[in-house]
């Protein structure tokens, strides 16, 4: 299967004359679990909607499963499952009724719709509560119903728009685990649009980063991580002392609140950190391998496809807001 799952060429979408949601985007996406990462307003939702044929592009081309989004929208939508970002469930229907109704609308015969609904709701982890009205569900349960309706017709490709939105940490873990299973066990290609890079690192195999409607990077996840190792050493007190000691050992370090960030480009830091903390007798809270934050990606932002973009040592790095809230169409 050499054909790309999704092929996007020079795709541009403008709303009116002032807002540009996508700006000449060109990228190929292969099967697997692909993270579509960008800040709010980067064009993720717009891209998903164009791929579904829900809205038309201003210019450029895109194919999904080798079908042109402009002319074969109906065929694409029959084979693709879509989980929107916003609420999309009627509160007065039960999960069973709603999901099987959606299965019918997807073209499944009545008996098959009922069977698949029971099966899919079991897979997403909804049991007795599936007969109750959705209005009384928790956010986590609603997200599961949204996922179930996208999965009920056994799509070849699943498009998930911010699937962990509004979930607490446990709910988030469960949702990510579910996405991982869908991609790895169910054999369904998944595209996850998110502004949280950390989530993709946990489940994804490939990453497509966009910003301002342009491609920042598209690469296997491994490449992102390999080049960006940072070790965060968090101590209750004495982070300056630790920083000085590690700097004296010849590591390139930076301070981030109580944490000391150490570049792990070579294999040495682990031993050095252990020794330093032990020698200084510091109360160690945690040692954690930190990965690329979204804003780091944007910092390298040369819009060159698949460039392994050499990443300098983690020099003075300010604490940047985790969620660069940028307005615009989403």
């Amino acid at each position, binding site marked *: 299967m050499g054909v790309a799952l999704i092929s996007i060429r020079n795709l541009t979408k403008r709303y009116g004359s002032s807002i540009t949601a996508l700006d000449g985007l060109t990228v190929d996406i292969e099967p697997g679990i692909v993270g579509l990462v960008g800040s709010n307003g980067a064009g993720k939702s717009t891209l998903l909607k164009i791929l579904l044929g829900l809205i038309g592009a201003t210019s450029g081309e895109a194919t999904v499963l080798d079908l042109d989004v402009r002319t074969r929208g109906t065929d694409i939508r029959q084979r693709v499952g879509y989980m929107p970002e916003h609420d999309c469930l009627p*509160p007065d229907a039960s999960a069973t009724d709603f999901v099987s109704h959606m299965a019918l609308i997807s073209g499944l015969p009545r008996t098959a719709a009922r069977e698949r609904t029971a099966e899919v709701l079991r897979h997403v982890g909804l049991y007795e509560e599936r007969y109750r009205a959705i209005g009384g569900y928790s956010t986590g349960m609603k997200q599961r119903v949204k996922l179930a309706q996208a999965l009920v017709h056994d799509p070849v490709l699943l498009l998930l728009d911010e699937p962990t939105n509004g979930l607490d940490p446990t709910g988030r873990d469960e949702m990510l685990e579910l996405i991982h299973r869908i991609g790895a066990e169910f054999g369904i290609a998944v595209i996850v649009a998110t502004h949280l890079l950390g989530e993709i690192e946990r489940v994804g195999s490939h990453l497509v980063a966009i910003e301002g409607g342009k491609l920042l990077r598209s690469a296997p996840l491994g490449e992102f991580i390999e080049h960006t190792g940072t070790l965060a050493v968090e101590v209750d007190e004495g982070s300056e002392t630790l920083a000085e000691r590690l700097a004296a050992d010849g590591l390139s370090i930076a301070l981030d609140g109580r944490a000391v960030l150490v570049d792990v480009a070579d294999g040495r830091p682990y031993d050095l950190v252990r020794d330093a903390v032990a020698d200084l007798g510091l109360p160690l809270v945690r040692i954690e391998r930190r990965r690329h934050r979204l804003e780091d990606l944007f910092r390298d932002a040369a819009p060159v496809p698949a460039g392994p973009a050499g990443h300098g040592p983690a020099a003075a790095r300010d604490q940047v807001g985790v969620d660069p809230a940028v307005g615009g169409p989403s």
Partner: protein
Amino acid sequence: MSEPVTAATSAGATGSIYDIGYRRYEGTRLGRGHAARSLFVHSLRSSYGIGRGGRAKIAPIILGVMALIPAVGIVAALTLFAQFGAGREFDEQVPIRYDTYAGTISTIVILFCAAQAPELFGRDQRHGVLALYFARALRRSDYALARIGGFIAALLILELLPQVILFLGRVLLTSDIPEAVADDLPSVGPVLAQSALAAGLLGGLSMVVSAFTPRRAYAVAGIIALFTIPNVVAGIVVGLGSSTIGTWLTLVSPTSILDGTNAFLFDTRLDSDFFFVDLPGIAFVGAALVGIGGSIAITLRRFARIAT
């Protein structure tokens, strides 16, 4: 790499693994037509609150029963009078007949529209369900047509069921059933036509209002206003002495249009104090058809452009 195992290729060991895990769907996939039909049936059922919570059934059941009461009452009274041999006399005197039934229950039908039409279009927009429909094989026009069609079908049942009961009662309670059938047969055509026009016009217009007003309360008020205000305005204009303008204003009043088509179809004269008595009957039928076609066209346009 997990290759999806199909029913045909999964023999032996691999098959057992997939039985406990995720199973691919290998059955038939019916396309757009099936999707549209399913949505049509869903709309029809939802109009009567079926498949929704208990509270959603209260309004349609009450209104449905109210629409049936005149028919059931007439049949009951007819039974009583027939026992005393006065069936025929009663039949000639009773004011509720095929040609008056639609008018008798028109208020109930309007209330049904106001209560239920916003549920179909408003719900999908309020709760964002539209995005899920449009992300499937269904086209936007399929969606709009299936929803309108389902609602009009629901209204048609509301109009016709009482008259079917009336018919059965009249026929079965007489001694000479074939003659009674022959008596009532000429009314079947007008009954069907009038019910279809009423369901189409009232249903179509209330669906237009609810398509543009996702907020339920506004849609309810809008539908009631649309069905009552033009009539009142026309009456006032005529009362002020401008009967020509008033006459034409009746053609924008849905209830007056239906009074006119009823008189035309059953070939009865409108009450003489009706101010629009001068208009030719066919004008009312034309206005009704324009109203039905127009509301479908406007709704299609609305959903072709709506953002999800």
